């Protein structure tokens, strides 16, 4: 008998846990921080029941370090946090990049800097997600914009982490985190789950950074009989520190290239009404919800407008933006920050069209009406919800 799919009415943070558990996450270490705490609360209740481990650590960086340790122990591992905690984790995120330890970090964005506004949404950590830790490093960052999509993208995050042996960041905001939507849970086997590539050589020959094919080496788990050295220093294929300048150059390039050269597979976009568009909107996360509504509204009135929505914000979808820039006269970039991704859109559009930002940082989401006004070239105010824009459910399906 075919098992029917289970539907649940859950908040984003719970959907994130569902996705993680589906992907095989069996270790969670974290520290309480609004608006991400529900992830750890649900993990604390769920993991012991399926043989997983949950640890609450003494602070943010300790949580990140525990995740790296658990992943080296062979478990798919994750942590979740928000802005201030994300800042505190950065050193260990860099360590995970350098040592090529797969793991997933969730940042439910709130307004900053510092404590900022803990209970309201923001998109102000997009650049931190890319450049938060020091040194040139790979960054894979996903930006889902609905509760269902968050579930799927969490599975994808684990898959990418395991495929490329790298930390993957899921970036969403307080609205997606706390909003409740009906979510369909995928059946076992329905979505592909990537397992870590293990070595098949004898332990005496194993080198943890010996890249044979592609840019990624197999990773043994501690305790499986393979002894190996892991360090945040530049290291040779056997994992031991090196001061060989040629190796340092090669390793740093490989770390970045293993993501850059696989951009086509890692990048994922949704294109909506772009074919004949004269004006384009580039929006991610919660803003993409408002943007899609605005595009639908204006399309029904005959305005030729389309939407490009990246589900992967880093690596940046340069090609897709350039394609859009060739077609449209203007690209509007609504963001809940004072202008971060807009500069990337400007760079990627290579002067082929006009790029205009629409920024809001008062911790209320950007309203569709504001985006409509921006598309129509009108002043963006007011921010108060006008009565004629009553959001219908089918209009905001993601």
């Amino acid at each position: 008998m075919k098992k029917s799919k289970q539907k649940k009415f859950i908040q984003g943070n719970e959907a994130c846990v569902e996705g993680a558990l589906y992907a095989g996450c069996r270790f969670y270490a974290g520290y309480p921080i609004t608006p991400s705490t529900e992830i750890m609360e649900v993990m604390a209740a769920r993991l012991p029941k399926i043989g997983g481990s949950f640890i609450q650590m003494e602070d943010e960086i300790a949580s990140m370090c525990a995740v790296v340790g658990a992943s080296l122990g062979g478990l798919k591992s994750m942590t979740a946090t928000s802005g201030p905690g994300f800042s505190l984790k950065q050193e260990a995120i860099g360590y995970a990049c350098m040592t090529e330890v797969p793991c997933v970090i969730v940042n439910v964005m709130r307004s900053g800097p510092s404590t900022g506004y803990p209970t309201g949404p923001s998109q102000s950590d997009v650049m931190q997600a890319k450049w938060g830790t020091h040194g040139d490093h790979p960054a894979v960052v996903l930006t889902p914009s609905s509760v269902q999509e968050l579930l799927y993208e969490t599975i994808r995050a684990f898959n990418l982490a395991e495929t490329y042996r790298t930390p993957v960041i899921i970036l969403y905001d307080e609205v997606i985190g706390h909003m409740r939507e009906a979510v369909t849970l995928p059946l076992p086997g329905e979505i592909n789950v990537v397992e870590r590539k293990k070595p098949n050589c004898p332990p005496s020959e194993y080198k943890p950074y010996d890249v044979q094919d592609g840019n990624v080496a197999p990773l043994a788990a501690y305790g499986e009989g393979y002894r190996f050295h892991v360090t945040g220093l530049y290291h040779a294929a056997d994992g031991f520190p090196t001061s060989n300048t040629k190796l340092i150059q090669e390793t740093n390039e490989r770390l970045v290239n293993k993501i850059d050269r696989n951009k086509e597979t890692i990048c994922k976009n949704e294109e909506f009404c772009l074919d004949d568009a004269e004006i384009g909107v580039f929006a991610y996360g919660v803003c993409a919800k408002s943007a899609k509504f605005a595009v639908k509204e204006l399309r029904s009135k005959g305005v030729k407008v389309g939407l490009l929505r990246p589900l992967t914000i880093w690596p940046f979808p340069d090609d897709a933006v350039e394609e859009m820039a060739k077609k449209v006269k203007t690209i509007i970039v609504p963001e809940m920050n004072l202008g971060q991704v807009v500069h990337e859109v400007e760079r990627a559009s290579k002067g082929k069209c006009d790029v205009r930002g629409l920024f809001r940082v008062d911790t209320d989401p950007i309203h569709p009406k504001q985006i409509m006004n921006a598309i129509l070239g009108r002043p963006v105010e007011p921010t108060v919800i006008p009565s004629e824009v009553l959001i219908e459910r089918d209009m905001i399906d993601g």
Partner: protein
Amino acid sequence: MATLKELSEKKELFSGGHRLCSGCGIPPIVRLVLRSTDNPIVVSTATGCLEVGTSIYPYTSWRTPWIHSAFENTAATISGIETAYRALKKRKRLPVDKDIKFVAFGGDGGTYDIGLQALSGALERGHSFLYVCYDNGAYMNTGIQRSSSTPFGANTTTSPAGDMIPGKQEFRKDLTKIVIAHNVPYAAQASPHNWKDLNNKAQKALAINGPTFLNVISPCPLGWYSKPEESIETAKIAVETCFWPLYEVENGILKINYKPKEKKPIEDWLKMQGRFKHIFKPENKWMIEKFQERIDKEWERLLALDGKQV
């Protein structure tokens, strides 16, 4: 020592109208500490209930200079402030004889866990300040997550009492002992139910030129699932059961400030709080025994040290 009348006549530096919950242990602790000196006070507060509940725009409860920086660093912040005032005095930008007191407040999350490094550093460097930890035994501000101060067995959102694990399985960290190990001139444990004792300890601490520390139990009806009107009683029973002994270490000499005539069983304290409800199930009886055993051991240890150099 001041009488209640004298205390009540002192200027109130912590005003009413704050947003802390009814039955919260924090306000009586803060008010008593601030009344324990006539000198000007500068206050630094870690992220937590106290900070959030007393500073919602456009209001403030603080009738004294007050700063909130972040979660992990109130001890570091007060270190900087205290050093700056010393420098200003040295340069005669402040009157040399002006004796300003520096007080840092942090909850158990911001003190036992993420703030421990900053606290330890400030104690070691020997800044002249009083650190007050209001210990309600969990991260209450973010919705009741366990901390390293959460008592054994307690049900929190990250140590949920379920079929697999019956609540928190670790004993709480003994922070007062850790502070004492820094050889500070004064460190003590107190409770808001014994206002005289708390006031006395704060007075002593604030009169000392050097790092001092108070660990004060702070009932939290929201996280303890206890009755708000019984908060002070809950604190009292914590002391009567010797879960929270009142003692001080002054210049290395330990003194127990209160010895219950008859030590109450820990059940008396546990049964006042919903967070321990599951412990009373027949299959979890061992937890009460384990809890009691630990308390007895700690109390015996303390009794043996009473009046001695530690």
